[in-house]
């Protein structure tokens, strides 16, 4: 079986909340429901990172979540792309200088994988269209990783 081909039509995503306010999370769900319906692209939310091609991460990393971010990233099979949704996951945003916020998500991902592929979706929260737009950008990255870009 050609593993590459199986990725072509359907991206499976795993959603991990690393300490977000839930604003981005409801916009992700909004993108799945009738108005935006990303399932028409074959995008599906799955319950385990081991099934996922794309990781959706939201929120600044709290003290309790930091080891779990790394664990989830390691459990996801290659090739993988991380979508960081919202500005607090990108840079910690409003939650800077707290004793319980350890930093933005990429800070931890780069510790374990310096070549991690991340697409950021700025917004507080981003509209569902911005998330779909970013998924398309993640597609480009996945294609480049697989060498499909002629």
């Amino acid at each position, binding site marked *: 079986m050609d593993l590459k081909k199986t990725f072509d039509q359907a991206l499976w995503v795993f959603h991990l909340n690393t*300490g977000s306010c*839930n604003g981005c*999370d409801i916009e992700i769900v909004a993108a799945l*429901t*009738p*108005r935006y319906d990303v399932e028409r692209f074959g995008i599906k939310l799955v*319950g385990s990172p081991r099934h996922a091609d794309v990781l959706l991460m939201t929120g600044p990393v709290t003290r309790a979540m930091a080891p779990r971010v790394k664990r989830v990233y390691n459990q996801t099979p290659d090739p993988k792309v991380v979508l960081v949704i919202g500005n607090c996951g990108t840079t910690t945003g409003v*939650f800077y*200088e707290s004793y319980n916020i350890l930093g933005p998500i990429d800070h931890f991902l780069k510790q374990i994988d310096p070549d991690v592929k991340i697409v950021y979706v700025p917004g507080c*929260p981003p509209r569902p269209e911005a998330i779909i737009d970013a998924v398309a950008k993640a597609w480009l990255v996945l294609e480049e990783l697989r060498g499909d870009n002629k």
Partner: protein
Amino acid sequence: MADTTYTFPIGPVHPALKEPTMFKFVMDGEVVVDVDVQPGINHRGIEFIGMRRNVLQTLHLAERICGICSIVHQYAFTLATERAAQVFEVPERAQYIRIIMAELERLHSHLLWAGVAAHELGFDTLLHLSWKIREDVQDVLEIISGNRVNYAMYYPGGVRRDIPPEKIPRIKKVLDHYKENFQMLADTFLGDPVIKHRTVGVGTLSKKDAIATSTVGPTTRASGVMKDVRFDQPYDAYADIDIKPVIPSNYGFEDAGDVYANIVVRLIEVAQSIEIIEYALDNMPSGPYRAEMNVNKVLMMLRKADGEGFGIHEAPRGEMCHYVRLKENQDNLDAWKVRASTYNNILAWQKKLIGQQIADVSIVAASIDPCIGCMDRVAVVDSRTGKEKIMTDVDFHRLSVEKTKRLRK
């Protein structure tokens, strides 16, 4: 304890609130014997951050405590700040705009909850139906405030944006659309035999327990307790409107405090919110929408202020409180305490979950509206063998769906 008991942690991600929760269940077979709630995974130290910033910065930090109830934290914080500073005379028009926004948010929050509750029962048709309807109120919120979530509307001494007359027909159109669809929603949720089987008598909270543990919001009203800040202590324009707390027994249902009663309360509150918004739109007085237009002057006024205030707002999930203390010649807050609704409902969770079947845990936990989309992992530890088996949200959801299927036969 019998041989057959298991420890059963659920969590840890539960990001609805400032305090996401981890459950530890002690199970006997399929039945929950004891439960311990361990929040703190999502703890971001909000109050600590707020005490290092000025009031206007904290205003927008407060909004980001929770993305689903973003308005309510800002509202309660604004009320507390105004009461602490005692220099702002909130214009009447601003008071009306405030309650319109708060009620629009209640609409979107309850519809969101209805969808999530249906999903927990394995009834995804209803999830998509309620979220389809919900998009209309999101549009209206975006038109008024310029963003679908995190509306940035409240402000010491008024609101950030006016609702100009040309936007009002659009809001009314959506309200009419909701009135047409309300009966359909009520029929699909309350008349469905499978939903009745899954929710009646499940996760009950007695009136006595609801009062003793100081629960708030629809959770307590479903048990028949007349507690609603908009009625008990009407603030802003709520003082002009005759609001009755929604109690199931007033509408021909039972005050059982179970999941079904929770659905009843929230659905009827949708209808109540539509009425309140219509009244407020029709009776909105003209005039300014802010006590002081110059932002820099507001900052100076807040810097000079000295005092303490306590703001309470009835959020979709229940009473929401902020305590604020300001000190003269000090930019940052001297003290700040945030109390989200679910904070008071944690103890109700324990009462509701004990004695439930494992397949019912997700809907019972969802019944207090903690924004459940986040129950991502369940680890089962067998106390006899010490073996650990990781169950994902999918397995957990599957158990729930299977139970629905069994009932349907």
